């Protein structure tokens, strides 16, 4: 269980770092990055639909 938490946290950090790079390249704005990081932070609380709604628009950048 603990390992799962750590794995999930590592994944979140990697996601956050990846989107931060996109921000550095000017592909997303400050507000967008804040929104993405907030969604990543609350990923356990959001439904698949909500995630799709908040992060889906950035698929094109991935």
């Amino acid at each position: 269980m603990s390992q799962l938490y750590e794995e999930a946290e590592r994944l979140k950090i990697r996601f956050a770092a990846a989107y931060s790079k996109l921000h550095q390249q000017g592909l997303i704005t400050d507000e967008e990055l804040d929104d993405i990081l907030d969604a990543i932070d609350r990923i356990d609380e959001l439904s698949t639909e909500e995630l799709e709604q908040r992060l889906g628009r950035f698929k094109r950048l991935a």
Partner: protein
Amino acid sequence: MSMTNNLSTGLTSEQALADIESERRLLGILIKHPNYVDAAVERLRAEHFVDPIHRKIYQAILDLYTLGGRISYTQLFNRLRKDGSIPSLEKALLELTEAFVSPAEFEPSLDILIEKHAKRAILQAAEEIQRMVLLDTVENLSALQAKAQELIFQATSQSGEEDVKDLMTVLNKCYVQLVERKEGRKPYGLPVRFPAIDVMTTGFKKKDLIILAARPSMGKTSLALNFAVNVAKPPRNVPVLIFSLEMDDEQIGDRLVLSELFRYRNRDGSPVVSPMDYSTRLDDEQFAKTQGVFNELFNLPIYICDKRGLSVTEIRAKARKVKAEAPDLGLIIIDYLQLIKPPPNSGNRNHALVVGDIVRELRDLAGELDLPIILLSQLNRGVEQRENKRPVMSDLRDSGNIEEFADVIMFLYREDYYYPEKARAEGTEGYTEVIFAKQRKGPTGSCYIRFAKEFTRFIEESPRREGE
């Protein structure tokens, strides 16, 4: 401050006194279990971390905590990203996710960081002292000694007990003292072996500032010196430090001897050695008695500083030095308040405020050294203009906030000081009223002792009252 290289390991002293694993462990626990942040905030500051990245992460945790925000890796990432001061932020946070096994590691890791930090502080103080000595940056030796003490004191007082204690901790301390008192191992306060006074005070308490005030020649210094000898004598042998800003060491030494010679009487009640004999020439018997007194006094743990014009800073430095040499130092006497040199920048300030600061700093010193300080003080002349010349609290008013800061205020009053002929006629010469005008931990009121002025000696003797 940079640290010197440790020759055997090649590490700087700071690196040698770091525990990076404990730092990681603690941060990992705080991020995964934010309920531990409360306990960390109490004892841990950012400077407890050696690794500058860890220091920044801890500070970010504290910032999020203070703002009431959620603490998580993502939140920390976002906060630290904006700050931009950690280039390898992703790597630093990833390392923390696997830094600990169980939150039970929190307390031991916290203790390690606090201990390492305390050791680094001592080392830094030592290095600063070394630098001051070798580069000769301080103007004179006494200033250098005072500065060195200050640095060591600051370095060694950082890991003291917590400011806010739970009731159980407080009651535990009280209970231990209660048992020690019951078993006769420890009195409540420091008795000065004048039963009338000890009954009023139950002994002078540690950390207390006691004001002993009276008009000139009333017997303040004599009583304080009597206290010093009584406390320092066997069986208690409590070390005492006397700051005499008025009298020199020989005068004090003579007074101590004379007050002990009071005990020796001929069959007709006359003294074996009178003050006049002592200050002129003694016969063989008188010399033998006096020599006996010297032998008794030689071994008493009494330290005397007779340097005039000392400031509170200098008094504090000297007191700390004596405390370091004699850790069981149990009493400090300062004779007297009005002779303490004000700080150099106090020229334009109201005199009462300056004196108030001195009194407050001395009370802080009593707390710091965990002992009672008896501060002698003059009274203003207002006393003389009243019909009833017993001192009252308002007679101290020109001397700053003494009333506010002092834990005990004692006044001395002798009727024979004002009405010598009346006292002679009534046989009440030397009878002294000790007025307890304030006692934070005891009753107010008066008790009586007698002053044998020529011997500078107070003795326990109740006054005769009318009809007795």
